[in-house]
C-alpha cells in the first residue's frame, strides 16, 4: 500500500513495571516524580508495526500523536529516533485531568486533522490499563477497529491482521481506514538508530525552544520542529475536555497491602505437597 499515511497513538507513562515502596503517595495517587517517564510499552509495539509497513512500501509516512504535558515531547523524539517521520504533541491546560472519554475526543479530533489512512496504538497503557482509548477513538471517527493485533501485512487493499485472543489466534482482513490496537506479544520495537538520534536530539516544540533559549538550535536546525497543538488547533469544545469532559470519578482509593499471612511456607516433603494439592482441589483452583 504505497503512499498511505499512518498515525501512531503513543502515551508517556510512569514506569509501573519496577515499582519501589515510594511509588504511591500517601493519598493513594501515583508518585510520578519517582517513576521514570517512559514510552508506553505496547505503543512501542504499535510503532514497530507502523515502521515495518513503512519499510515495505513507497511513500508511507508515520506520524506520532501524543497528548500530555510539554515533557511528553520526549515520546515524539523517541519515535523519531526509531524512524517515525514526524510527530504532534497535543498539549493544553484544558486537556489536564481528562479520562479516556475526554482523551479519545481530543485524539479523534487531532486524527481528523491529520487525515491518516491507518491509526495504530498500543492495546493499553500501563498506568491505567483500561484499553479503552483506541476503541473510543475508532468509535468517534466512525471507523472500524481491530484489537489485540500482533502481526499485520497488506494483501492488495486489505490489511491481514493476526489477533492474539485468550484462547487462540484469529486472522482477519480489514479495509482502510482503520484503527488497530497492538498487543505486547507483537515484535518488540527496534532500537534507536544512531544517525537519527544525532539528528533528532535537537527536535523541539516551540514551548521547549523558548524555555531553552538555544539560539544555535533555532538558527541552524530549523527543519527539526515538533508540532504543538492546543485546543484551538483541533477545534475542540473545552466542555468535552479535562475534568468537565470526564465522567469517570474516582470515588475512593484503597491501599491493598498483601499481608505475610496470605502466603504459606511449604517444604518439598510429600506431606506438604499433598496437603497443597488437596487444598487447591477443594477450593476449585485446580480440577
Amino acid at each position, binding site marked *: 500500500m504505497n503512499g498511505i499515511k499512518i498515525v501512531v497513538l503513543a502515551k508517556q507513562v510512569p514506569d509501573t513495571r519496577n515499582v519501589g515502596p515510594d511509588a504511591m503517595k500517601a493519598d493513594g495517587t501515583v508518585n510520578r516524580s519517582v517513576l521514570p517517564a517512559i514510552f508506553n510499552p505496547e505503543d512501542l509495539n504499535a510503532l514497530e508495526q507502523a515502521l515495518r509497513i513503512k519499510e515495505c512500501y513507497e511513500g508511507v509516512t508515520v506520524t506520532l500523536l501524543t497528548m500530555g504535558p510539554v515533557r511528553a515531547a520526549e515520546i515524539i523524539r523517541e519515535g523519531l529516533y526509531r524512524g517515525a517521520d514526524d510527530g504532534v504533541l497535543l498539549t493544553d491546560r484544558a486537556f489536564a485531568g481528562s479520562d479516556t472519554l475526554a482523551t479519545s475526543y481530543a485524539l479523534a479530533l487531532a486524527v481528523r486533522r491529520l487525515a491518516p489512512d491507518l491509526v495504530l496504538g498500543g492495546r493499553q497503557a500501563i498506568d491505567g490499563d483500561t484499553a479503552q482509548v483506541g476503541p473510543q477513538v475508532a468509535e468517534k471517527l466512525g471507523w472500524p477497529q481491530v484489537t489485540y493485533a500482533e502481526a499485520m501485512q497488506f494483501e492488495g487493499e486489505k490489511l491481514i491482521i493476526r489477533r492474539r485472543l485468550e484462547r487462540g489466534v484469529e486472522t482477519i482482513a480489514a479495509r482502510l481506514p482503520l484503527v488497530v490496537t497492538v498487543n505486547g506479544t507483537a515484535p518488540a520495537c527496534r*532500537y534507536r538508530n544512531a*544517525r537519527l538520534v*544525532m539528528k533528532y536530539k535537537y527536535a523541539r516544540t516551540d514551548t521547549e525552544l523558548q524555555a531553552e533559549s538555544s539560539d544555535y538550535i533555532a538558527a541552524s536546525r530549523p527543519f527539526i520542529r515538533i508540532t504543538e497543538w492546543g485546543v484551538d488547533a483541533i477545534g475542540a469544545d473545552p466542555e468535552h475536555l479535562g475534568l468537565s469532559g470526564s465522567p469517570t470519578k474516582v470515588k475512593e482509593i484503597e491501599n491493598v497491602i498483601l499481608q505475610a499471612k496470605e502466603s504459606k511456607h511449604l517444604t518439598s516433603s510429600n506431606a506438604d505437597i499433598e496437603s497443597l494439592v488437596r487444598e487447591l482441589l477443594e477450593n476449585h483452583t485446580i480440577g
Partner: protein
Amino acid sequence: MANFYTDNKDLRFHLTHPVMEKIVRLKEMDYRDREQFDYAPHDFEDAMDNFDRVLEIIGAICAEVIGPNAEDVDHEGPTVSDGHVTYARGTRENHEALTRAGVIGMNFPRKYDGLNFPMVPYVMAAELVSRADAGFANIWGLQDCGETILEFATDEIRQQFLPRFNKGATAAMDLTEPDAGSDLQAVQLKAHFDESRGTWMLNGVKRFITNGDAEIALVLARSEEGTTDGRGLSLFVYDRNDGGVIVRRIENKMGIKGSPTCELVFRNAPVKLVGERRMGLIKYVMSLMNGARLGVGAQSVGIAQAAYEEARKYASERKQFGKTIDQFPAVFEMLTLMRIRIEAMRTLLYETARFVDTYKAWSFIAAERPLTKEEREDLKNNTRLADIYTPMVKLISSEWCNRIAYDAVQIHGGAGFIKDFPVERLYRDARITSIYEGTSQLQVVAAVRGVTTGGYLAQIREYEKNEIRPELDHLRKELITLTGDFEKRVAQVTSAGNNELTDFHARRLVEMAANIIMGYLLLHDAQRDAVYTASAELFISHAVSENLVRSEYIGAFEEKTLGLYKVS
C-alpha cells in the same frame, strides 16, 4: 533496562579523557561537516553527547539481544550449504539489530554513510559487543576492513564498497593459507590480470578465514609471478556479488563458535586492486593487522569483563561453610585481582586508541593540506607510539583475559566445568585471543622494538612528568624505581650483542615495560578520579613483585645457560 555501557563506569571515564577534545577536533576537522550533514556535531560537547548516546544504544543491544543469544549461537553455530554460509539464528538477529541501529561503519566519513567516530568510542563498542558475545564481535568488528579501503583504495572503490557497510554488509580479511599462517610472506593465492576482461582474477585456496563468506573481502594474493616473498604480494577487494569464491568447509572450533572460520576456494574470482601492486603485505596488511590487533585487545577486555561479572555474581551467591564464598580471602583476592587487571588492560587499551586516533586524524588532514612542523612531529610521535603500544595491548590483554577466564571457572568450582554456566563458554572463547591476529610470541617480536629503541622508556619518562597529588606521590616513586630497574636490565641484555639472548628475554622485558606503563596510566586515572586510587595502589604493588621476578631472573641469567634451553 540492562545496559553494558551504562553499567560500567570505566567506559564513560575513558571516553571523557582530556585528550579527546583534540582528537575530536582533528577528526571532525573543526566541525566542518555540520553545514552539510544534519547529524554532524557542531562542537566538542555535541560530539561527545553523540558518542554517549550511540554507545548507550549499543550497550542496550548487547545486554538485551546479543548477550542473551550467545548461548544458543554457541550451540547452533553457522552451517555451510552450496558453498555458502548460513549464520545461526541468533547471529542474524544480532546483526540485524546493529544494522538497524546504524552502527556499522562507525569510523567512516559521513560521505560514505559512516558516523565519522574516532577509534576511542569505536573500540568501546567493540569491547561491549565482545562482552556480550566474543564470536559475534568478529563479524561486527570486521568493519575494520573498511578502514583499509578508506585509507588506501581509490575513490571509485570507496564509493562502491563503503556505503554498503551501513546497510549491513559484512566483511572478511582473506590472508591465511594452509602454508602461510604466521608467515604471510608464503602466500600463494594467484592473482593475474585478465586482459580480455580487463580485471584481476584470483585462483587458489585460503584457510582459517573468519567470516569467509562475507559480502566484501580484502584478499592478499601473489600478483608478481616468479616471486617468493612479501614483495610479490598485492591486496585486492572482492565483491561477493561477482561470484567466484566458494566456502569448502568451516572449522569445528574450541570457542567463538558463532563466527564461521572458512576454507575458501577461488576460481577465477574477479577482484579490484587496492592501492599499489607489491605493497599488499608490506604496507596494507600491516595496517589492517594493527587495526585487528587493537580489536583483539578490545575483545579480550570484553571477555574478561564478562568472565569477571559471572565470577563475582556466582561468588556472591554460592554459600559454603555458612557464608558466601566471596567472604574467603582466597576468593576475594582472586576477584579483586581480576578487576584490577581489567582496569589496567582497559586503561592501556584506550591510551593506545588515543594514539591511533591522533595519528590517523593527522594523516587525513595531511591528505588535504601540508602539515606544519609541529603537526608533522605530532603525527610521527603518535604513529610511533601506536606502533609499539598496539602489540603490547594485544599481548597483555589477551594473556590476562585467558588468566581471568581461568580464574572465573575456578571460582565456579565444579559448576564451572559444566556447560550450564556461561563461564564455560567464556573460557573457550578466551583461548583464541592470544593466538589469532598474531600469536603472543609474535606480539613480543613486534613489541620488543619498543624496548630496544627506547620507545617505551621515553614515553614512561613523559608519564613521570605528569602532575600527581601529594598523597599519590609514593606510587610515582615506586614506578620511578621500577623504571630504573627496567633500564638496567634492558642495558644488560642488549649490551651482550647477542640477538638470540634479546629474543629470549624479550617477553620479560616487554612485560616489565607494560607493568610500568599500566601503573602510570592507573596512577593518572587516580589523579583524575580518586575512585581509582585503590586500583593504582594494588596494581603497582603487584607490578613491583612481578617486575622483581623478571629482573632477578635476567640479572642471574648467564648467556651460556641459553644452550640448556635449546631443543635438539
